[in-house]
């Protein structure tokens, strides 16, 4: 009986002793040898067809797009082209969608609702609230995305985007980030939710979290119209009319550049503080160039990116539309809920150089940045009680002309400071709910979602506060 157990003890002791003798690199050594053997076997058994010709072409393209002289100018030109096509190309379908969905379909729906005897409350809630908010989001969001995403995906498919990451990696490395963050950032200029999804290409956990958390500083598609509108109306008006276009464009670009600088700054801070302990590995594969598959690319980018984002936005916009309408139409005492909230938020808003209307608009318009300006206008009309503007309480609208807009906003107490701070706050505030939800899905962590949502909000409040105080100190 004792012999086998003695034997067993002996073997166990030997094993324990050998464990120390084989040394600490044992597991790694074994694994590396397995890999090396596998590679050697594969090298011996696999013959490769002659790929030299394409290989040379690839090398020529690589030399060109990563050249010291031509690399950066080509990159800048290419991306300017993509943005130009997106912005100018989206105007026509956007106006078309807006005239169909808002100018034509909305009155038809309203009269149809009236003819079947729907109560004013219900038709207001469903049509003025939920339908209009959704229509607004679709008409503003869909065309630029339907242009931007396929273009971007074509560049990706061709193999150019990894080279962009390669060219820019050194700059991102200095802020503790990954070169591929350049790509998710570019994608963020289209839509932050899509930008967050695009961080999947970053396989290093720490750098991926940095890219997710800072993506919001890429000025998205939903915020460009706000920036352009406010810059045109307030900043462009400061200079003679022949300079107005240039100056307002520069103001918008300045905001976008500020966003990029904030991306680097916050990446640098994050990688040195809260994200210090996350795993970091770098690797960047530069795949061979391929002729882009145009139709397939358009199809997949529409399905994977455009439709995904649009559907999320619609899901969030409908309840928000209802909420906005209810806010403006349900009264407590003499005032609507919206007016109560605006009165409550006004002191804080004024303190940071904005006002209660803007703050309330940013709270209720969390689902989509696209509806911030229409909501601001609707609420301003509600507060000032101006006649001849707007379409009634809770009904979002856009001003007929810039002059109308200026009159309305001046009546709402806007100054140049309000405009500048709105532009800053539009860049630096919490991401829209679609993006927040996407961040949660991608990180699976409430903690990082909270950081991604609150960090820019706090920063935005701080920046607008300081700008407002300094402005008042020196500018009166």
């Amino acid at each position, binding site marked *: 009986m004792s012999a086998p157990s003695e034997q067993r003890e002996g073997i166990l002791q030997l094993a324990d002793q050998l464990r120390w003798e084989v040394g600490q690199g044992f597991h790694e050594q074994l694994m590396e040898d397995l890999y090396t053997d596998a*590679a*050697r076997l594969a090298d011996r058994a696999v013959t490769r067809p002659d790929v030299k010709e394409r290989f040379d072409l690839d090398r020529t393209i690589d030399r060109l797009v990563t050249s010291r002289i031509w690399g950066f100018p080509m990159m800048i030109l290419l991306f300017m082209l993509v943005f130009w096509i997106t912005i100018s190309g989206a105007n026509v379908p956007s106006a078309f969608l807006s005239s169909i969905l808002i100018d034509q379909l909305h009155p038809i729906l309203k009269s149809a609702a009236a003819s079947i005897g729907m109560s004013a409350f219900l038709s207001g809630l469903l049509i003025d609230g939920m339908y209009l908010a959704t229509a607004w989001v679709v008409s503003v969001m869909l065309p630029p995305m339907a242009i931007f995403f396929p273009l971007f995906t074509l560049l990706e498919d061709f193999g150019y985007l990894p080279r962009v990451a390669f060219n820019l990696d050194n700059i991102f490395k200095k802020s503790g980030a990954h070169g591929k963050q350049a790509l998710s950032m570019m994608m963020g200029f289209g839509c932050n939710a899509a930008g967050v999804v695009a961080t999947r290409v970053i396989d290093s956990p720490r750098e991926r979290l940095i890219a997710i958390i800072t993506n919001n500083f890429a000025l998205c598609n939903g915020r460009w119209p706000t920036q352009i509108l406010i810059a045109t109306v307030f900043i462009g008006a400061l200079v003679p009319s022949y300079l107005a276009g240039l100056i307002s464009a520069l103001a918008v670009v300045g905001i976008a550049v500020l966003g990029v600088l904030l991306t680097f700054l916050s990446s640098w801070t994050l990688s040195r503080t809260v994200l210090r302990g996350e795993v970091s590995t770098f690797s960047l594969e530069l795949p061979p160039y391929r002729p882009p598959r145009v139709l397939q690319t358009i199809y997949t980018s529409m399905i994977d990116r455009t439709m995904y984002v649009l559907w999320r936005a619609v899901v969030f916009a409908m309840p928000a539309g209802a909420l906005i309408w209810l806010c403006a139409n349900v009264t407590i005492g003499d005032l609507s809920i919206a007016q109560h909230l605006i009165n409550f938020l006004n002191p804080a808003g004024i303190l940071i150089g904005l006002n209660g209307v803007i703050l309330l608009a940013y709270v209720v318009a969390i689902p989509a940045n696209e509806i911030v300006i229409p909501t601001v206008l609707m609420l301003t009309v509600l507060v000032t009680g101006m006649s001849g503007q707007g379409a009634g309480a809770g009904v979002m609208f856009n001003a007929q002309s810039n002059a109308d807009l200026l009159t309305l906003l001046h009546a709402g107490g806007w100054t140049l400071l309000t405009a500048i701070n709105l532009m800053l706050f539009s860049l630096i505030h919490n991401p829209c709910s679609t993006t927040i939800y996407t961040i949660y899905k991608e990180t699976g962590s409430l903690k990082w979602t909270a950081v991604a949502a609150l960090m820019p909000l706090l920063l935005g409040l701080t920046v607008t506060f300081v700008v407002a105080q300094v402005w008042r100190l020196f500018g009166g």
Partner: protein
Amino acid sequence: MPNPILALIAFAVLAIVLYVLLAPERGLVWRWREMGRLNERVFIEDTLKHVYKCELNGRAPTIESIAGAVHISADQAAHLVTVMTERELLVLVDDHLKLTPGGVNAALHVIRAHRLWERFLADETGMSESGWHRLADRYEHGRSPEELGELERQLGYPTHDPHGDPIPSSSGQYVPHGGQPLPSMPLNVPLRIVHVEDEPDVIYAQLVAEGLAPGQQIRITSQSPQAIRFWADGDEHVLAPVVAGNISVVVEHAAEVTRAVERLSDLKQGETAVVSGIAPACRGAERRRFLDLGILSGTRVNAEFLSPSGDPMAYRIRETLIALRREQADLIYIRREEAAS
């Protein structure tokens, strides 16, 4: 509207208050939590470690040395020793404090916890070297043997911590690293680093900055009372003997000759070489990634082109273009091939 100057002052005060309260590792909230963490159990475990190390080094632990090591007052240390004697962890033999057999087991358990956590931090997180020891000091307390067994399993039953200290097995057994201090070794003999001492912090920080880690091959070229000069994996280092004394080495077996000295980062654009190995300092996720990419001993690598911003370099490895940063290329050893092959 409030006066802007007052508003800015109020804001600055608020920011300072928040910083003082919430700053990581310096803020009051962090310190309060830290104080709450330090209970009697932690003190006892730290004392066990201290007494064990004293016995190992042939020094006699005293109330004063315990107070110093555990960061408590002498009165508290005296009380602690009484408590530990009652629990039969310590005994007083001829006026000397000694660990009982139970005390030795408990001490080995804490040391095992500390070294396993250091291994974990080094392999599975992105913490830098300077953070390992300090964090392991926090995580080592109050761990059950089952917890440590699970951690050990996850890490693949490591034998040594990242500094080269052996990790005691669950039955408390281990083999010391057996190295000698570097300055005591003869010149021009192939040596291998087996241990880099992580205390005190200042000296360890210097060794980390020099890139010295267990597993590296070393050869001393000259030695004087002021400085010791040596090669470690292809780089020359000059250290004060007191600093070099924190490195322990063994004589390398004659069969294994000092490794080739060139690194992938030395490869100029257009040049080709063959990988001869990955640096021992490259661990965990980073090492696995290299293996996944096929960067193995014997793999041919060609430096194809450099990013216009100066870093990274694109290398052709097994018919794939892979960009590696300079710090990564530093971790890969190469040897130049003869033109014929």
